[in-house]
């Protein structure tokens, strides 16, 4: 055997970690790290970004409140992920399709579903899924949305729609699903207009990112599909928006799909069903992320520019929360679902067996 190995695997492995820094525009000390991009935003844009994040934070707080009062069904907290969620979704246009995961309800609302519908979805009422937006309902099966996004992208392309694409989301855990790779690979092979977004919030329920994969970044999981991908500071809404917007422009120009990994953090529990993050992480691990809060840094910029004040924010939060209370009242008055309707909506043409069941339940329900 020769002394020199035929392949230096260790060198190849080390090279995998040789990745560029996540894209950032505004760091956690509210210092501009990319002046050009920063300057491309008007004052109005900056205020709009702030409003969206305040809206999402207020939505989260109010929804948690409703949840504690027993007025919600399934709810996946979003606190901490405002920059990632709002930044990316604001790059969407109405004709784009959204394929959200269960934590992406705020994006679904931004894309056209009403808050009442979102609450009804949470409670498990079919009227929560009848939104008019071009969107799937929040996907529960992790990975499924990536496969479907490839199909939606191809459909858009075949329909000849030039200024449209599919936006889809999954988490860090979701990148381990075979479907995620299949979806990216299909979209790549068909040059389908899809923006794959991985919101890396550090945990899949309790499993930390480090246990999810040996890959140094999740973004590089797109490489094998021939898809360009980047990491973005997911606590920086300016970076999230700018990258999503650039990706959208690139995709609608006919270049095929892109994948973005946003580095973000989920402050609270995985879901409102009672799991406790204290079981799998410490305050000391959490604190640095709280310090990176996306609202704090943009607020500081806006206050320095005299575009924002605490008063103004408090007023907004009150307004938003009032609208959420209105929405849940409206949700409360949704008609009760009926078994006969469930049977009727299973197939366009009910089977003979179902026709009998429908008649049976209708008779019961009319009593």
């Amino acid at each position: 055997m020769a002394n020199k190995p035929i392949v230096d695997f260790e060198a190849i492995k080390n090279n995998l970690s040789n990745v560029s820094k996540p894209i950032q525009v505004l760091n956690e000390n509210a210092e501009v790290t990319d002046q050009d991009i920063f300057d491309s935003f008007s004052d109005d844009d900056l205020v709009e970004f702030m409003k969206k994040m305040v809206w999402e934070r207020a939505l989260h707080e109010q929804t948690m409140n409703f949840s504690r009062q027993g007025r919600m069904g399934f709810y996946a907290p979003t606190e901490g992920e405002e920059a990632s969620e709002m930044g990316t979704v604001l790059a969407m246009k109405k004709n784009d399709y959204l394929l959200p995961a269960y934590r992406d309800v705020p994006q679904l609302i931004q894309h056209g579903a009403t808050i009442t519908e979102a609450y009804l979805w949470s409670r498990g009422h079919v009227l929560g899924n009848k939104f008019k937006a071009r969107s799937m309902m929040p996907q529960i099966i992790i990975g499924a949305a990536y496969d479907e996004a490839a199909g939606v992208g191809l459909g858009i392309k075949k329909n000849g729609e030039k200024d449209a694409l599919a936006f889809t989301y999954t988490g860090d855990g979701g990148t381990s699903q075979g479907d995620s790779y299949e979806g990216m690979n299909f979209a790549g092979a068909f040059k389908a207009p899809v923006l794959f977004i991985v919101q890396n919030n550090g945990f899949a329920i309790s499993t930390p990112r480090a246990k999810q994969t040996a890959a140094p970044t999740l973004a590089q999981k797109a490489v094998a599909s021939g898809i360009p991908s980047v990491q973005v500071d997911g606590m920086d809404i300016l970076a999230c928006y700018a990258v999503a917007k650039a990706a959208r422009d690139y995709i609608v120009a006919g270049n095929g799909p892109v994948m973005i990994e946003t580095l973000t953090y989920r402050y609270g529990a995985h879901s409102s069903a009672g799991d406790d993050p204290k079981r799998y992480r410490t305050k000391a691990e959490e604190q640095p992320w709280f310090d990176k809060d996306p609202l704090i840094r943009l607020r500081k910029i806006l206050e320095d520019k005299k575009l924002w004040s605490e008063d103004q924010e408090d007023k907004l939060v009150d307004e938003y929360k009032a609208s959420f209370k209105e929405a849940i009242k409206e949700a409360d008055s949704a008609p009760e679902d009926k078994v006969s309707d469930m049977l009727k909506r299973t197939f366009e043409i009910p089977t003979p067996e179902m026709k009998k069941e429908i008649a049976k339940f209708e008779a019961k329900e009319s009593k």
Partner: protein
Amino acid sequence: MAKKTYIQAITDALDIVLEDDPKTLIFGEDVGKNGGVFRTTQGLQEKYGEDRVFDTPLAESGILGLATGLGLTGWRPIPEIQFMGFSFEAIDQIAGQEARMRFRFDGTKTAPVTIRTPYGGGTHTAEMHADNLENFFTGVPGLRVVMPSNPYDAKGLLISSVENNDPVMFLENLKLYRSMKDDIPDGKYTVPLDKAKVAREGNDITIVAYGAEVNEALKVADSLAEKNISVEVIDLRTVSPIDSETIFKSIEKTHKVVIVQEAQKMAGVGAQVASAIAEDAVLSLDAPIGRVAAPNSVYPFALGEDIWIPRAKEIEEKVNEILNY
């Protein structure tokens, strides 16, 4: 009208639906230039172009996810799974996503997908290529499962399946692909979904069968006719839902029934048929329900198939047993 094999009948149907509706798309592994590993899609890419008939990367979940997404954007996908044993890879997209699309969205979004896939034993294929997996899918509400037993029905049922706005698993029997020919009308005709057919009328006993076993049952009927025993054969055609009315009507006349399936006894839809009879028509019977099915082993390797798959001989034995009860 021309004599055509089961495969030619299917190709015919695909040609018609591609011609009829510009939104129909055929895709899967090797369906393009190669015309599918069985040549079922032969010539279609040439005729309709790569936009309508195309090869995909090799991933079943991806293929079915593609179908879901295309369905959502207004297309009418006809994906092919190369062999039914590979559908395990796509269970979520079929059962978890497409089958519940209409329900989820109260009809405002649907998945008009027709999934074609070959199944069935007797052709000595490699492992995982022949399993009868229909009962995986007949247990899925929101999904129709269609299993034609002959070329005429294959064409008419496939056209009906594609035109249906809900997802359909369209299962093509491998053994029948080239072993059977029918007179097939040119052009379009349909065979209704959800409807069984009385494949042969008779008065003494009913055989309920589907897929390739219908042909075995017909052989039994022929053979017993020579002994003056009149057998009625029912071909389920759609195995989910089951057309129980047609079965009940028959056993009200014959009072005896034998249910036949190619799948293992614990698989297939025979148990579903038996339960429907037991629930609503048991008093029509004057003998126990007879069942013929493969044994509950794992699906055998190629050379074991011939002793394992129930064929006419086993059916005839069971029919005689029930007749003499």
